[in-house]
């Protein structure tokens, strides 16, 4: 058997590629933007998977966390940081966006103590609507017209670093006592409490971490397209995330990476595809909900449901009989 190339080597190669590729001019700006979207969507899918997949709760409000992260980061780079220092301070803006979103996530964890399932879905939706409504009613942030003036700070290097960092954090959380607490809530919340899992604290932790990641993705998004408005973060955006999570597979980080990649590429591929067939571009929008419905009917666990790529399991966990050991996908 050939020796496996260790993960750090892969990561180093990836980082070098992310830094060098845009400089070569081999890739068109459009391709670079699509790659950026894939990265952002990976973070979003991982974030949503923590709540919807691992914990088995149901949030449709993640676009709200993303909005909070996007606006926070943009305000910092445009108004607060000195213009020339912005590229250097960009990660700080991203982290701040994530942090503010995390505070909102903390707030949203409290309703989840008492409500579950579809009722919690409504709570998260109400949260999303309120975020949007607040943004629309803040003239200083551009109100319904939106906020602009951001430099294009989202480079492929930052995207790569953010994806790696996000996946690393999520992986670590999942493989700790907190992660098992999350899974036990998914399986049977009452029983979880009765074997000592502090279900409330676990929920707070998961909602906070998940919102933090979505906030980071929001900051990246804002500085990739350099213009945001409240309509960028609607239920439609949340639905995109849902499709990616359920396509790739719930309870699987690898699934989220896969789901984000496939979904983003297919959606982009449909543009020229439809054009060559002479079909109006509006039909592209029909694709996502149709895919979501078919997934639920035919393959509710997604491609990789509850299974994981080896490299996404911490080394000291790999030899243990993990929960993916003998899962059969129905």
């Amino acid at each position, binding site marked *: 058997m050939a020796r496996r190339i260790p993960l750090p080597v892969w990561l180093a190669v990836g980082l070098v590629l992310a830094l060098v590729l845009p400089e070569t001019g081999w890739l068109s700006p459009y391709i670079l933007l699509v790659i950026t979207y894939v990265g952002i969507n990976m973070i979003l899918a991982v974030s949503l998977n923590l709540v919807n997949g691992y914990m088995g709760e149901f949030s449709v409000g993640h676009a709200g966390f993303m909005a909070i992260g996007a606006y926070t980061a943009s305000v910092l780079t445009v108004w607060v940081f000195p213009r020339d220092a912005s590229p250097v301070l960009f990660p700080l803006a991203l982290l701040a966006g994530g942090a503010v979103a995390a505070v909102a996530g903390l707030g949203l964890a409290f309703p989840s103590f008492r409500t579950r399932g579809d009722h919690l879905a409504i709570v998260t939706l109400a949260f999303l609507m309120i975020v949007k409504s607040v943004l629309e009613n803040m003239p200083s942030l551009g109100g319904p017209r939106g906020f602009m003036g951001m430099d294009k700070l989202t480079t492929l290097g930052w995207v790569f670093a953010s994806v790696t960092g996000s996946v690393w954090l999520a992986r670590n959380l999942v493989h*700790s006592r907190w992660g098992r*607490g999350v899974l036990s809530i998914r399986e049977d919340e009452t029983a979880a409490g009765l074997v000592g899992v502090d279900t409330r604290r676990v929920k707070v932790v998961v909602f906070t971490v998940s919102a933090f990641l979505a906030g980071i993705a929001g900051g990246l998004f804002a500085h990739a397209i350099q213009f945001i408005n409240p309509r960028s973060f609607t239920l439609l955006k949340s639905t995109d995330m849902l499709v990616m999570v359920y396509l790739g597979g719930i309870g699987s980080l690898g699934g989220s990476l896969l789901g984000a990649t496939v979904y983003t590429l297919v959606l982009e591929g449909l543009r020229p595809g439809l054009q060559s067939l002479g079909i109006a571009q509006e039909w592209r929008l029909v694709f996502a909900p149709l895919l979501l419905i078919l997934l639920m009917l035919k393959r509710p666990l997604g491609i990789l449901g509850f299974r994981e790529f080896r490299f996404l399991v911490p080394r000291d966990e790999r030899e243990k*009989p993990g929960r993916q050991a003998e899962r059969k996908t129905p």
Partner: protein
Amino acid sequence: MSFLSVEEVSRSFGGVRAVSGFRLDIGEGELVALIGPNGAGKTTVFNLITGVYRPDAGAILFRGKSLVGVPPHRIVDQGIARTFQNIRLFRDLTVLDNVRAAQFGRTPTTVWGALLRTPGCRRDERRVVDSSRAFLAALGLEGEAGTLARNLPYGRQRRLEIARALATRPALLLLDEPAAGMNPAEVEEMMELILRLRKEFSLTVLLIEHQMRMVMGAAERIVVLEFGETIAEGTPEEIRTNPTVVAAYLGGEVT
């Protein structure tokens, strides 16, 4: 001061009294059985002790501390664990992970430690895995660590529930019909298992059971419940010959 004392506890649901004026005192190290016909309120007693329900009236003290209004996981932290009448394992987790999950309250890993996977976190995880394997071994489940809980045979699931309860390091173990649906040989085996675990982990045990073999063979004291009220209490000998109990419940079952 007794180990667990339940004092005049009542609880009703929508006008129906599930438990009324229930009293129970258990000394440290005792093995007490709670028996009674279906619907007598036995499981409700467990739910009251473990904090699933809050009593309408009365007090519950464990080692002198009140349990009323304390959330379930804190009660577990104080040393009370239980199993369920209708098995409630984490069905889609492996046997090992079921036991690992039950050590949540016995692991100090902070959120930051977990997120950054610090050396401390890794040490905690190693410790949890080692002890989980030990608990599985105590129940004879070590060979099935990687099996999904849902795929275990019924009798093994009962054992896993006990292993999971033990993993919380209880001083008081509440067993809700551990021998339900078992044949006489399996009942015998379960009884020996409970007696062994009790010694090995120095447990106090409160047991709900319908299998009279087990009740009479294992319990030192028996409490009989009917319509939410205690109708008799005593040693197996006393209960066996108590006319009220025989009329209400035992019938011809005990020979």
